[in-house]
């Protein structure tokens, strides 16, 4: 095969699109949503650190920046994993409803094969969106809950920097660690 020529996968364009719909890879739009949410949710605890624990933000900013980046990476890793696990479950749950919706929309206008392909595609789309929202909600609740528990109760008498470091290790670490469980 000449250089630059694409390998023939043997699938049609439509089949490739369906495969992409059901692949565990998250779309670029989904990844962008994950990163934005991850960066935002890990910045929120800095408010509690600064106001309640009197963390010296100006003097120790570098630790906040490092912590934010590492946590954001852990959070988006967790989002992806939970989303992949949930997508399969949601796709199974929504089969009937999606079939009814698509059938109601196109009815007998299209051939049976075309209708089935549309249902499959729509099911994948619905499962993708719903699993993204669920994953963000689920991981954010656990992350913020663990952070508050450890920062405000268990580590409350520790120095601000130590409090921050250990609270985020526990919260982000736990979220990333349990994200692969089904």
């Amino acid at each position, binding site marked *: 095969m000449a250089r630059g020529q694409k390998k023939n996968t043997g699938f049609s364009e439509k089949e490739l699109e369906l495969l992409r719909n059901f692949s565990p890879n998250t779309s670029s739009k989904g990844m962008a949503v994950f990163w934005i949410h991850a960066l935002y*949710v890990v910045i929120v605890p800095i*408010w509690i650190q600064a106001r309640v624990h009197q963390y010296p933000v100006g003097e120790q900013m570098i630790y906040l920046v490092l912590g934010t980046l590492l946590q954001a990476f852990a959070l988006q890793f967790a989002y992806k994993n939970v989303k992949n696990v949930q997508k399969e479950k949601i796709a199974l749950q929504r089969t009937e409803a999606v079939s009814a*919706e698509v059938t109601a929309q196109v009815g007998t206008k299209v051939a049976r094969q075309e209708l089935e392909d549309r249902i499959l595609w729509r099911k994948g789309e619905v499962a993708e969106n*719903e699993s993204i929202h669920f994953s963000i909600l689920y991981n*954010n609740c656990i992350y913020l809950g663990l952070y508050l528990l450890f920062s405000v109760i268990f580590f409350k008498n520790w120095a601000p920097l130590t409090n921050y470091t250990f609270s985020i290790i526990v919260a982000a670490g736990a979220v990333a660690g349990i994200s692969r469980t089904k």
Partner: protein
Amino acid sequence: MKLFGIFALIGSAFGQEDAQQAPVEARLLISKKTDTKILAENVDMTFTYKIYNIGQSAALDVEFTEENFANDWSIVSGDAKTSWKSIEPDSSVTHEIVVKPSKAGAQNITSAVLNYRPSSDSEETVRSFSSDYGVANIIPENEFLRNHASHGIDWLIFLVLTIPSILFPYMLYNKSVARFTKAKKN
């Protein structure tokens, strides 16, 4: 000898009765206290001064001076120097100052001073001192904020900040679930 002892006892009883009577001229006693439990930098403290006249005459031209809060303190409300034309016998007046320490550490808070004329005939003034507070250990502001402040507003703002992270994903997820549950039923 026994007779002398009896007369001495009777004499001392009369003497004690005289000592318990109120002084003829005005006599002012002043107490100084604060109910503020936690003394912290940049946190308001209220000092209350109660001036009692235990004499039988009115105290005239009463001048109150509090010089403890001149350095490293700021006065939030009330006057460090004030005066009353007279304080009647068997009566009292109350004065309050709200101050704020601008420096942490141990600070010695001594007495306030009262100058007054004990009677209308007297041209000389009498000086009286209040009780002193003693050494006040002012804790640093960040320590106070960390350990004692309520942070109500901060927690409210935190709740608002979590809305995009929790409420929005929940609403979107719930909307999708409700839509497809309804579609399934139909």
